[in-house]
């Protein structure tokens, strides 16, 4: 059978060595009443047939070309260098476990250390962890840090933060009796103000004011940021945010129907002991050679158990590796160009869409980077029409925000070339 190595002879020899008749003699501890004979599942298939079935399922999905995808809302089409998959598909990386045995895991450990350094660099903060599950859980974990650090049990979500992130924050919060408040002024009960830059609609918020407000109230400022925008925008470290979190999907990961992606989290030195998850640090051997090890494990579940900063164990290492390769491939100027091209195209598109009858920017007075909200006549019909033309149009955000009925956010990145923009504008005008 596929993926099994023992031959019947092997099994017989092993049973004999064990001095038993059959495998059942090894299962004696299991009450007979519990024993099954087999599973209610069809028998296995050949690889050919397996792949045929799986491919048939894949074939029942509609894949829009990257260049004609204008939908974002937390997951974006970006150019992914071939180098990224070439690295993450190396079995030495993807078939290793969490690097418990440092000396035999230097590849993973150093790669994560580089990832931590890159994220710290990008966010302008002191220390990044080795990765979290996604942007949503990163926001929640950051809130937990603030809760523990301040001893206060309320967090304020300011403005249009990704609605799913807020839902996850609520679920996490409930467990620990943390109240999640939408907007409003911070007070003595406020552990943190959480804001997103750019926000869920793509709009810029006043990160400096929000951070100052939090600090004035003795709360922490948690910035949820778009990693690519940080090539242009002031990083959290520059406006003194305490914790930066975000979704790393744009750093070399496929949309993949929403996962696996990667959550990043970085913070000021003072908060490092509250950080969730793995941390890799430098260590040396007896000969003074530099190596890397899992560090500050005393924060973690396997040591601290119920007192751990988080329960996270398996995280999203391989996705962090992808992000590290992506950022290293881009370098400072490459990342800047990606952000710059996306910015210009989004603004050019906004210009053109605005001029269409009945179309208008939902927040004309506000700045954006490469995603922007528009009021659109008959949005549902429009999006269906675009889809028929193979275009994945913008995202209807009214689904989450009553006040935004009829508002659609459009995204542009370096993959949406000039012709793609023309095609979109034609299609909507038609």
């Amino acid at each position: 059978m596929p993926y099994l190595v023992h031959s019947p002879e092997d099994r017989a020899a092993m049973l004999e060595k064990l001095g038993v008749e059959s495998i059942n003699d090894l299962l004696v501890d299991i009450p007979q009443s519990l024993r099954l004979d087999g599973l209610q599942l069809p028998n296995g298939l050949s690889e050919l047939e397996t792949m045929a079935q799986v491919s048939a399922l894949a074939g029942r999905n509609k894949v829009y070309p990257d260049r004609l995808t204008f939908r974002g809302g937390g997951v974006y089409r970006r150019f992914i260098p071939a180098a990224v998959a070439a690295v993450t598909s190396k079995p030495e990386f993807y078939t290793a476990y969490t690097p418990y045995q440092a000396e035999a895991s230097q590849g993973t450990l150093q790669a994560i250390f580089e990832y931590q350094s890159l994220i710290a660099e990008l966010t302008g903060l002191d220390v990044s962890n080795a990765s979290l599950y996604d942007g949503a859980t990163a926001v929640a974990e950051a809130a937990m840090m603030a809760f523990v650090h301040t001893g206060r049990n309320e967090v304020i979500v300011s403005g249009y933060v990704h609605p799913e992130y807020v839902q996850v924050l609520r679920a996490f919060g409930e467990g620990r009796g943390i109240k999640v408040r939408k907007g409003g002024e911070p007070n003595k009960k406020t552990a943190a103000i959480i804001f997103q830059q750019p926000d869920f609609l793509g709009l810029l918020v006043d990160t400096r004011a929000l951070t100052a407000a939090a600090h004035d109230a003795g709360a922490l400022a948690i910035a949820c940021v778009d990693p690519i925008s940080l090539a242009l925008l002031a990083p959290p470290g520059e406006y003194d945010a305490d914790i930066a979190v975000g979704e790393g999907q744009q750093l070399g990961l496929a949309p993949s129907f929403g996962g696996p992606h990667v959550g990043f989290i970085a913070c000021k030195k003072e908060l490092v002991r509250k950080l969730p998850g793995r941390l890799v640090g430098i260590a040396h051997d007896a000969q003074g050679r530099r190596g890397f090890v899992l560090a500050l494990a005393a924060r973690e579940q396997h040591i601290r158990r119920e007192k751990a900063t988080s329960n996270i164990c398996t995280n999203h290492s391989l996705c962090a590796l992808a992000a590290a390769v992506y950022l290293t491939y881009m370098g400072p100027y490459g990342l800047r160009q990606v952000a710059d091209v996306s910015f210009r195209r989004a603004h050019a598109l906004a210009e053109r869409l605005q001029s269409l009858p009945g179309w208008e920017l939902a927040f004309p007075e506000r700045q954006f980077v490469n995603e922007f909200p528009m009021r659109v006549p008959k949005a549902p019909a429009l999006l269906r029409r675009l889809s028929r033309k193979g275009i994945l149009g913008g995202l209807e955000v009214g689904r989450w925000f009553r006040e935004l009925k009829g508002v659609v956010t459009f995204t542009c990145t370096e993959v949406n070339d000039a012709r793609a923009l023309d095609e979109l504008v034609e299609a909507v005008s038609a």
Partner: protein
Amino acid sequence: MTEPLSFELSRPAVDPPRLPEPDVGGPAPAEALPREALRSRPLGLPRLSEPEIMRHYSRLASLNYSISENFYPLGSCTMKYNPVANELAASLPGFAGLHPYQDEDSVQGALDLMWRLERALCAVVGVERVTLQPAAGAHGEWTALRMIAAFHGSRGENRTEVLVPDSAHGTNPASAALSGFQVVEVKSGPDGRISLADLESRLSPRTAALMLTNPNTLGLFEREILDIAEMVHATGAMLYYDGANLNAFMGICRPGDMGFDAVHMNLHKTFTTPHGGGGPGAGPVGVKAELVPFLPSPTVERQNGHLTLDYKRPQSIGRVRSFYGNFGMLVRAYTYILAMGGDGLSQASQDAVLSANYLRKLVENDLEMPHEGPCMHEFVASAQNLQANGVRALDVAKALLDKQFYAPTVYFPLVVPEAIMVEPTETESKATLESFAAAIKEIVARARTDPQSLHAEPTNLPVGRLDEVAAARRINAYLQGASDDPVLRWKAPPEGTS
């Protein structure tokens, strides 16, 4: 050979990669945005050419042990072969290219895969429904406990305690605590199983749930599981199954039948999705009927062939992550299940148990076996017999590395001193198990004749044994402001040096 950091290989003015040029006009960010919104410090990413980057990561890869090249008997982690077909499946454009906010009609295949996977997992563990949202086992534990809390709440009960055996994995108490419960420890008996007497004494109207791993972390089947379930249910509490050890059970028995009300599975263990050096994994949670109303939203529903995402779940605990779970991992697990089938999965668990008992037999005279066999899919030995020679489990582990074997899990579970937890899995050959046993024998012999040499292990790896204590000291110095070497990240050397 060690490898420099990418930052150390970086040189100013290396060409950036060629990328699309702005071709549509549009303002420059610097003109359009207010100064204070813009980055002021330059971005300190490394600058390397593609050939240098590829060689850098190729060399890093070669510094790793992995199941692709090494026996990796890491107890409790089920390091089994990761089928290459799974990787192909997950990379199909029809999956990898899907935006999570596409209309349902355009993702019927993806939803159908999730629905079928849910059905298959229900069949394996014996539950009513499964949520595929959790990203890993710990995430699943916490998700399940949120549901259990909601369940009790819905019945107006205020149950504040979760019982966790002393042999449990650290994520169990951590998940319980993060879910707002007090953690109450339950002792193991001399036979390595949970002590019913102690359990009895801990159970109370405050008890929300008992978290159990079965086979437990000692690799032993909880013989009295049916009595345990009865006791727990009798107090109105729920029984939670930590599925990290499910690889022992497929086609043999089902947690659901044992009385477990909620079950998490580690697709990255039992169902061969790769561990990725520490994830991503996937930790679906299966539940009995009583807990179904509390499942995270959305669930995948199927009516006469049409698949939908159901967000209308008034009693749901809400969302535990964005979107629908680690979809790419779900594709891999489903592909594996298709290929193996019911027959293959059953044989897999039987072989896993056989291999563990065989390997245990081969080393039973070399290391201490604190508990009687037979074991299930793994066993826990102890290196206490070497302590007289000043040799510890850690030394044994490092010596194994020098023989091209990854090390078993050591010092877990905590109830066994100098624990060495070995899980061979069904995808390692008899010959491999025998060569591993031979290595253990050699090391144990050396512990008697030349213990010092074991403290020096490993010696054949890119680096020798790394001093974690010294590292921790330097980190503390940094965190306390006594040093400005961050240790946890690269830092540009002060100007002038290099």
